[in-house]
């Protein structure tokens, strides 16, 4: 082990590479052994507490041994809609291991994981970090046999790992097939300042969801009085129901890297990072090859296109933390730390990676920027609405005939989208993922645009046979699981929301509980430190507003219901007294015999 770790650290001797180092150790040993922590602490010259806090923060790192096959099943609502619960039970049986456990022979461990970004081809999972799609009884039979024979992943049939693009509708961006280097040559021809002007003219706004004007961000960063600057591409696509960045990086990666290089030329950065979510490990080698090819072709590295530009891109993998999609948490993670959002100001454009000015943009933003550099601002701006120029690439999943990737001009109505993807009998749509809003069948004329329904691209369709409260329940658990725990309102609040939702969904709620739920929602929303907490109550708030009766129907006809199980609390006492007669039980509420 010592030699193995020594070997990794020789190539990654900086503490900023801690996540990448830990990923390799986890992959080799299926946990991070105590000796490894001790050794890393010495080699990287950081306190062991920093290493432990990183291990305990990211879902894919473990202090105790996991199975040699670490099997994780995606817990996105879309996986549930495709029968995930039944499959998980089937897996438990087939592999003889319970969820959350390691089988006694140490061969396999099984657990849930947050959305793996395969919502159009679920139920999905990960085995030792590699994506599994289209899980069903027959593929599980195969997987169980392969695991029991202890076949290395390289010998598993490729169809288990088949990931499809499923592009069903292309528009302005997806129809573009730029030649490698075209955008950089265009910048060289037009001039750097002039290119920024074109991007400004295009009206391009950040595609992650917040919608900050891209040209303004780049301008601010370029104006900072600092020698070093950084470009970061946020490919930590963790919002359940979003998978467009996976497709863009699979098929349009050259353009994304080109967009990053254009940005670097404009702001004067020499180093860039692609922060790739750990769930997209299957893309890693392919992306490395593209970077290598770009270096060979003079489009990356020193003296790019003989124009004197020096810029290179490094790929950093995440390790299972939704919060790292928040830009300052992402930067912390790039620095080898737990992904805890920073206090702002200062913003990343002034103090980002290692305290230096940093542009963080979404994958789609860089893709669009590359196309704009070639085609000019007007080409992009003539499409869309007044405040939302250009097109938006959507990830569509849930109850429809053709889930996948759709590109639309901004301003498209929900109705049009539902028609195109073959969705019938629709109850409502979750727009923008769990942190977005649920819209009902009364609102299908609404438009996707920053003026109306802003979205990072997640679009999950629910038909009338679905239960909205199941969805809210799933989303609320998701946020409690993903809260970083830094600030009180989100750390405690998301857990309280989870408890309160459970109480109502399980039929233990009373009238006062819905009032309490709403009050708690406002508290978490208004006082949380970052976007996660500020949006964690959205699933409840947006459905409570539209379907108050649905919540009411789950309530008991009493004004107060205890928050805990009275009879359950007596279980230990019953065991100790060896009693199980009627007198040793308590009803949850006093039953009025006259009723």
């Amino acid at each position, binding site marked *: 082990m010592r030699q193995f770790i020594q070997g990794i650290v020789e190539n990654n001797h900086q503490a900023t590479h801690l996540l990448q180092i830990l990923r390799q150790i986890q992959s080799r040993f299926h946990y991070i052994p105590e000796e490894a922590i001790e050794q890393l602490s010495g080699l990287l010259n950081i306190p062991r507490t920093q290493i432990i*806090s990183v291990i305990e923060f990211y879902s894919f790192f473990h202090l105790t041994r996991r199975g040699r096959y670490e099997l994780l099943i995606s817990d996105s609502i879309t996986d549930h809609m495709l029968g995930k619960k039944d499959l998980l039970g089937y897996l438990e049986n087939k592999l003889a291991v319970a969820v959350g456990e390691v089988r006694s022979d140490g061969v396999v461990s099984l657990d849930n994981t947050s959305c793996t970004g395969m919502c159009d081809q679920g139920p999905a999972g990960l085995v030792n970090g590699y994506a599994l799609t289209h899980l069903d009884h027959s593929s599980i039979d195969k997987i169980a046999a392969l695991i029991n024979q202890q076949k290395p992943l390289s010998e598993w049939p490729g169809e288990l790992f088949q990931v499809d693009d499923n592009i069903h509708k292309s528009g302005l961006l997806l129809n573009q097939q730029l030649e490698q280097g075209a955008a950089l040559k265009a910048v060289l021809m037009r001039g750097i300042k002039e290119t920024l002007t074109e991007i400004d003219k295009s009206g391009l706004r950040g595609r992650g969801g917040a919608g900050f004007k891209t040209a303004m961000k780049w301008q601010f960063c370029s104006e900072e009085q600092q020698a070093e600057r950084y470009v970061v591409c946020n490919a930590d696509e963790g919002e359940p129901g979003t998978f467009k960045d996976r497709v863009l990086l699979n098929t349009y990666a050259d353009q994304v890297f080109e967009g990053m290089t254009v940005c670097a030329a404009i702001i004067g950065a020499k180093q860039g990072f692609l922060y790739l979510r750990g769930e997209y490990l299957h893309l890693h080698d392919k992306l490395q090859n593209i970077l290598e090819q770009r270096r060979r072709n003079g489009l990356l590295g020193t003296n790019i296109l003989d124009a004197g530009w020096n810029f290179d891109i490094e790929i950093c993998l995440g390790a299972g933390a939704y919060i790292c999609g928040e830009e300052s948490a992402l930067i912390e993670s790039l620095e080898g730390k737990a992904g805890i959002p920073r206090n702002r100001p200062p913003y990343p454009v002034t103090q980002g990676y290692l305290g230096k000015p940093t542009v963080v943009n979404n994958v789609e933003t860089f893709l669009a920027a590359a196309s704009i550099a070639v085609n000019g601002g007007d080409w992009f701006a003539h499409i869309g609405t007044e405040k939302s120029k250009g097109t938006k690439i959507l990830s569509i999943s849930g109850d429809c005939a053709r889930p996948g990737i759709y590109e639309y001009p901004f301003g498209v109505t929900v109705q049009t989208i539902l028609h195109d993807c073959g969705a019938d009998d629709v109850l409502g749509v979750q727009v923008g993922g769990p942190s977005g809003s649920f819209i009902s069948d009364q609102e299908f004329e609404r438009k996707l645009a920053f003026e109306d329904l802003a979205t990072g691209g997640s679009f999950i369709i629910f038909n009338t046979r679905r239960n909205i409260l199941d969805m809210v329940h799933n989303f609320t658990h998701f946020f409690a699981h*993903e809260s970083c725990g830094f600030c009180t309102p989100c750390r405690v609040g998301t857990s309280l929301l989870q408890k309160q939702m459970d109480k109502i969904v399980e039929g233990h709620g009373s009238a006062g509980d819905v009032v309490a739920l709403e009050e708690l929602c406002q508290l978490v929303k208004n*006082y949380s430190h970052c976007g996660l907490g500020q949006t964690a109550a959205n699933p409840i708030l947006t459905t409570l507003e539209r379907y108050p009766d649905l919540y009411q129907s789950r309530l008991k006809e009493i004004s107060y219901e205890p928050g805990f199980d009275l009879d359950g609390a007596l279980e230990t006492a019953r065991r100790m007294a060896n009693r199980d007669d009627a007198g040793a039980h308590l009803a949850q509420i006093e039953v009025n015999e006259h009723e």
Partner: protein
Amino acid sequence: MSKTITIDGKTIPFEDGQTIMDAAMAADVYIPHLCHQPEFTPHGSCKLCTVKVNGRNCSACTFPAMDGQDVLSETKELIDDRKKITQMLFVEGNHFCPSCEKTGNCQLQAVAYHLNMLDNHFPLFYPDRNVDASHAEVMIDHNRCIFCALCVRASQQTDGKNVFALSGRGIHKHLIVNAESGLLKDTDVDVNDQAVHICPTGAILVKRTGYQVPIGERIYDHQQIDQVALASEHPKHGK
């Protein structure tokens, strides 16, 4: 002309580089807080010091004061919500004031009194947390930790050590210490370290000093936390 902000209508001067909290405390305006102490880098995690700045909620301890800011602090809404945030801190841990040595000296308890907190409001979590009594002179009762990171910062910034850190995610957040065994006795902590004495609750206590000051004669038995904070955390008053 010097720059000013207003807090609840009162004009308050500030210097560049000061946060809203710095400016307020210097002007004898108390804003409730638990994770903040002026000598350490602001953390901004407890959220008790949330104020409305030009209509937007901000943490006073981290948000820079800027000329002309209109800050609201003692509104009914903010006071009510600060109370609920304090109640959150109570329910997520195990805080039994009557049996805690820190009672009367505890800032969490004092803030709760200041905000007129009379019950827990939220259901209790009853988490299963340990006590680390391994060290000869110092003990950690994890039941009372509120994750303010004051001990973490004091150890790094004053003691020049790295004894403490916060680890885990979400509701599983917890305090860890820098030793292979995970026990305080194997760290380089010293009873005279500032980190040992900075805890706002009874999570870090010095052994064999319990009840030397009788209940009834403790810091917050006769004074509200706002008076104490303004007197002790404000350099002008200290001198």
